[in-house]
């Protein structure tokens, strides 16, 4: 499969580490995306990928187009974004005074998880401090599911 950059993306899931929350074990699944550039560069690691996207959304004067473009591209990838990327995106929504897009982003990542039902609750759990700080309600809290 191809992303916008024209590079080939290989995708496999991997069980990375477990979290202990409220006395029961919660596993988190992160995608192991191996991105190899079509022109033969080196593989970008997960951390580099995440850092790149966090930097993108953390731009202080990000505009609405950049937010849309970023989110649409990110959702186009064969992965569920890490909580830190989503946090940066939600904060970008806050800077743009756009609550609706923030809720839409949460809906989109839930849809991206597909049949893996544990991913979305994990993401919400990780994002909970940010959601409370910014006052973003989840679609479930608003009854939109």
């Amino acid at each position: 499969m191809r992303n916008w950059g024209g590079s080939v993306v290989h995708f496999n899931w991997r069980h990375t580490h477990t979290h202990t929350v409220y006395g029961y074990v919660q596993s988190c699944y992160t995608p192991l995306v191996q991105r190899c550039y079509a022109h033969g560069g080196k593989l970008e690691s997960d951390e580099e990928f995440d850092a790149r996207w966090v930097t993108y959304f953390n731009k202080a004067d990000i505009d609405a187009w950049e937010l849309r473009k970023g989110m649409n591209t990110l959702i186009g990838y064969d992965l569920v974004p890490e909580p830190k990327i989503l946090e940066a995106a939600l904060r970008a929504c806050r800077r743009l005074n756009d609550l609706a897009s923030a809720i839409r982003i949460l809906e989109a990542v839930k849809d991206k998880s597909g049949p893996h039902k544990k991913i979305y609750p994990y993401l919400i759990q990780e994002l909970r401090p940010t959601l409370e700080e910014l006052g973003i309600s989840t679609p479930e809290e608003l009854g939109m599911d």
Partner: protein
Amino acid sequence: MLHLTTGRVGCLLSKQAVVALTGSGARMSSHGHHEVSDSVDMSQPMYWDRLDTPLPDRPWKDVLDSTDKSLKQKEKGPWTALSKEEKIALYRLKFNHTYPEMKRPSHEWKTVIGGMFIFFGITGLVVFWQGHYVYPPQPPTFDEEWQAKQLQRMLDMRTNPIEGLSSQWDYKNKQWK
């Protein structure tokens, strides 16, 4: 526009069958432009409800009345001050369908299967009518008596005696083996 020329084929679809409703139909809700026909003005930013492209180029409601405008003003402040209804209202201003609404099942399959069977039925009637009115009379070679005599002749001349017809006939007892 780049969106439509690529047709979003380059975007990834998630593993399960996800039906994304494209925004190619008329997307007009309080839109300022006066569009008479059903076709969409492609030179303007479009709205769409797509699972794989969450944020469309323009909001659902472009033309805001005064209550909407005051709500948008309130959105500039802390979101903790917004009530649930206000948050839902803000979402509905910007987006038409929620993701669950986009993924709602349709009853289209019943129409498809039903239409299929109707056409099978019509075809069946046509075939029956044709058999009755169009086909010439059946040749005499299909009559029972003729077929029996034909078979007897084939056995008499030992057709396919090794592995075929005559090998299955018991000539001594005049019956099939």
